[in-house]
């Protein structure tokens, strides 16, 4: 069985990336690593036979959320301020206790991939047995999403809509400017940082360098 090997390899990569996020102070690097983290988790979802979820995570995590994070970085500081030296005892204690409790909680769970686990016995089994004749479409995820659990999905769609309204209320929307006005201000959409320099030239505080903006 090759599946557990791939699974553990991907999870090991994810642990390395998570630790790098903890250590890294360049927030641009953090955004990139976070995107990589999402992409690797999409790989884990594929190994776990969740194609729809992997698809969504790859599109959302590696695409939209990275763009949003980069756009935020151009509007805030690019580097994290250095912290005080010393071991942060209180956060470590809290995290360690929480993690220990959660690991203790998993000890009662059924073995990974057990077909007899309680989660597979109730409603999910019925979906798999009956959705073929009741709904008539092969993709069970779609039929559960849109039909059996349509209420949930309506709620989620409303949440997304509300989040959109909230962001517009917080940030406002820029109206389109007439063409002749634009010549003076040749910024690209991310504040001229569409293709950002990668590493090494990191001393600037605000990456959207207006003094360099030529004709865009």
């Amino acid at each position: 069985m090759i599946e557990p090997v791939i699974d553990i390899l991907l999870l090991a990569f994810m642990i390395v990336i998570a630790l790098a996020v903890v250590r890294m102070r360049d927030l641009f690097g953090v955004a990139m690593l976070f995107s990589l983290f999402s992409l690797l988790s999409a790989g884990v979802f594929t190994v776990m036979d969740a194609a729809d979820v992997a698809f969504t995570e790859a599109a959302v995590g590696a695409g939209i959320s990275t763009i949003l994070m980069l756009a935020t970085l151009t509007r805030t500081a690019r580097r994290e301020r250095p912290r005080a030296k010393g071991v942060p005892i209180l956060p470590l204690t809290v995290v360690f206790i929480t993690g220990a409790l959660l690991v203790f909680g998993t000890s009662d769970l059924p073995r990974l991939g057990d077909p007899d686990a309680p989660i597979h016995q109730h409603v999910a089994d019925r979906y798999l047995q009956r959705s073929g004749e009741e709904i008539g479409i092969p993709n069970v995820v779609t039929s559960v999403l849109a039909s059996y659990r349509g209420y949930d999905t309506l709620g989620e769609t409303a949440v997304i809509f509300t989040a959109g309204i909230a962001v517009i209320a917080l940030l406002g929307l820029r109206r389109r400017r007439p063409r002749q006005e634009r010549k003076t201000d040749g910024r690209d959409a991310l504040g001229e940082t569409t293709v950002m320099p990668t590493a090494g030239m990191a001393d600037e505080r605000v990456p959207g360098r207006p003094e360099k903006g030529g004709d865009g």
Partner: protein
Amino acid sequence: MRFFELYNYQIAIFLAMIGFYVLVSRGNLVKKVAGLSMFQTSVFILYISMGFVQGGTVPILVDGGRIYSNPLPHVLILTAIVVGVATMAVALALVIRIKEAYDTVEEDEIHEQDRSF
């Protein structure tokens, strides 16, 4: 040996705790949001691991009796991912507004300014 049968859950919890550590120990708000999102992704992995069936396949029905993985966690997490990015956008928008109001995104500097009011 039971310990090794649950490795996926435990690694997911470990990842979640790294995200949690970033959330509680770092002062930069953007990094906090990144840590929170990492926490979220780890919880997604935990959920999807529960729906996994040994020797199963993607829950798209084909002829012939196959074993399918559990579609229910997939549906929950599918919507949660998209909702997660929408809520993350709200958090980042708040960070931008905080930056404009306080001219910093470091937590302790914001606290300092608030006390001096």
